[in-house]
């Protein structure tokens, strides 16, 4: 097992990794930017290095400073968390070159899955159903040909994409040229890679993903699915749950089977997530995330497995301590993302000082956060302040528990998504279960209309 791990991240996930390390008896090294000097992720680590000023490109994405901090402090491994350098194969390679174990899959797999077109091809080869569409298209004309072939509406997607960036819906041929230009420009700006591909746009599908764990000795298990269909118009997830509600048992079993098959086919190791679009009885592979996900706690709560500890154990060469038969979910879990943003104003991110912070507690509640009363929300990063997770015996009891937990939550100083999410939980359609990704955007659109 590792002696000391550098945590190449910030915020709640850095704290989450710190917890897993400490519970495994591993020392930790935090990195931080000038803007995060007072964050809890710095306070709780055994050592901490400032790696740059506020902007992420100069700090949390500063590979030389991060690797240097790991070497100076005598680390033997790096955990990248999610975002930042988590899916950067080059970072994983540089770490390896300096004798540091990267806690995640191999650079080759990261690369293959990170390139959406390659990932799709590999999945097709493994017999995984994928959305009808093209490989990389070289021009608007080529995009039009593909679109007409599979039929409008289509989705233009950046092959290097993620987080909804470099993605455009195209409902008619006339919209193509503008959509192509803006998606390409956005992809170029965000990922320095403007290549696009075309996919069939599903109408209001569900976003369902399957968590997998794979060790270096051929052990592969799934830990069930998560439903992440409650997404903002920007495609960012807001509420997630496990298991998916109102899902046909046959379809559920098929998703699990596809996930483990695909994991084996690409010789995947460590924790990963296969994202699918589900529409009626159709299942289409969307992408594979080669890292821990924000929403991993809902899976942890119903399976009783600590996914971050498993990541570390796998990276240290250990075999999974369990087989598929040992894994049984209990109950239902739901997560709400508490973001510093204004739901009344297109979720515009907010920065400032948190004057009051009271999180919920009691039975069945888990809170993952790096903020506290008096802490500063810098303007540079993701707006997530906390994840509140509720577990109950049934979906209904988990939702009721989450409602009371959000009612207890008090965050003052910046606008947050707390009250908005509490309202969503009370919505009849949400309560029935199984909403699609179009549910929240259309609800917001209806609200925005004058009465």
């Amino acid at each position, binding site marked *: 097992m590792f002696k000391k791990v550098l945590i190449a991240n910030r915020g709640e996930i850095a704290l989450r990794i710190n917890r897993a390390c400490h519970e495994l008896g591993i020392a930790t090294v935090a990195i931080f930017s*000038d*803007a995060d*000097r*007072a964050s809890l992720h710095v306070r709780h680590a055994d050592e901490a*290095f*400032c*790696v*740059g*000023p*506020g902007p992420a490109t100069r*700090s949390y994405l500063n590979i*030389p*400073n*991060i*690797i*240097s*901090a790991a*070497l*100076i*402090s005598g680390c033997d491994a790096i955990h990248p968390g999610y975002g930042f350098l988590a899916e950067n194969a080059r970072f994983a390679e540089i770490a390896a070159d*300096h004798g540091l174990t990267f806690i995640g899959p191999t650079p080759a797999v990261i690369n293959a899955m990170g390139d959406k077109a390659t990932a799709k091809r590999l999945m097709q080869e493994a017999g995984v159903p994928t959305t009808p569409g093209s490989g990389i298209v070289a021009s608007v004309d080529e995009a039009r040909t593909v679109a007409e072939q599979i039929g409008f509406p289509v989705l233009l997607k950046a092959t290097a994409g993620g987080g909804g960036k470099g993605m455009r819906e195209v409902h008619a041929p006339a919209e193509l040229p503008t959509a192509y230009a803006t998606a390409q420009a956005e992809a170029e700006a965000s990922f320095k890679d403007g290549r696009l591909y075309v996919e069939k746009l599903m109408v209001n599908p569900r976003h369902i993903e399957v968590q997998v764990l794979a060790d270096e000795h051929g052990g592969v298990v799934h830990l069930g699915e998560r439903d992440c269909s409650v997404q903002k118009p920007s495609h960012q997830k807001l509420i997630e749950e496990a298991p998916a509600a109102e899902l046909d048992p046959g379809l559920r079993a098929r998703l699990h089977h596809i996930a483990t098959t695909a994991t084996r086919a690409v010789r995947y190791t460590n924790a990963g997530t296969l994202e699918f679009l589900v529409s009626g009885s159709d299942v289409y592979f969307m992408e594979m995330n080669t890292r821990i996900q924000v929403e991993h706690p809902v899976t942890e709560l119903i399976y009783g497995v600590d996914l971050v500890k498993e990541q570390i154990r796998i990276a240290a060469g250990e075999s999974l301590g369990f087989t598929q038969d040992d894994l049984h979910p209990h109950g239902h879990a739901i997560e709400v993302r508490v973001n510093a943003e204004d739901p009344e104003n297109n979720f515009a991110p907010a*920065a400032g*000082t948190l004057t009051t912070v009271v999180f919920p507690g009691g039975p069945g509640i888990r809170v993952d956060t790096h903020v506290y009363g008096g802490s*500063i929300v*810098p*303007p540079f990063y993701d707006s997530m302040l906390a994840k509140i997770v509720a577990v109950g015996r049934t979906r209904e009891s988990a939702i009721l528990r989450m409602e009371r937990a959000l009612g207890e939550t008090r965050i003052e100083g910046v606008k947050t998504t707390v009250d908005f999410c509490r309202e969503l939980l009370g919505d009849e359609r949400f309560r029935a279960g199984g909403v699609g990704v179009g549910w929240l955007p259309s609800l917001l659109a209806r609200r925005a209309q004058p009465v």
Partner: protein
Amino acid sequence: MTEDVIAVRARALAGALAEAGFARLRVRDGETEIEVRRASHSAPVRPSCAVPAEPAPRPTVERMADVISSDVVGIVRLARPAIVEGQELDEDRELAFVETLGIRNPVRSRGTGHVIAVFVTEGQPVEYGQALFAIER
């Protein structure tokens, strides 16, 4: 820099200030400059007040220094012969370099001056923003 960031930088700078034992320290970071001034120990703590106050007491010795800090995370390699406190710099020169993954990141004096503090020793690991030298202009 945002105001928040200035605040945290200023706080860090105040630490170096106390260590170096003088009255004012200044640090430049790209377009922004932060200056931290230490109140004299003899000065009473005075809340701001509507009535006109006497002139604020000033520290006996006032010195003004530039702090040269590290831009990278790495190991300090001092120039040879090593720069020492009290030394006069009559030209802009390299005071040290910080080694990061085998790369040499020079640390220059940014002009002439009087070295009033050397905060680091040979081979010491430093983080981003860590004070290395203080130079009186």
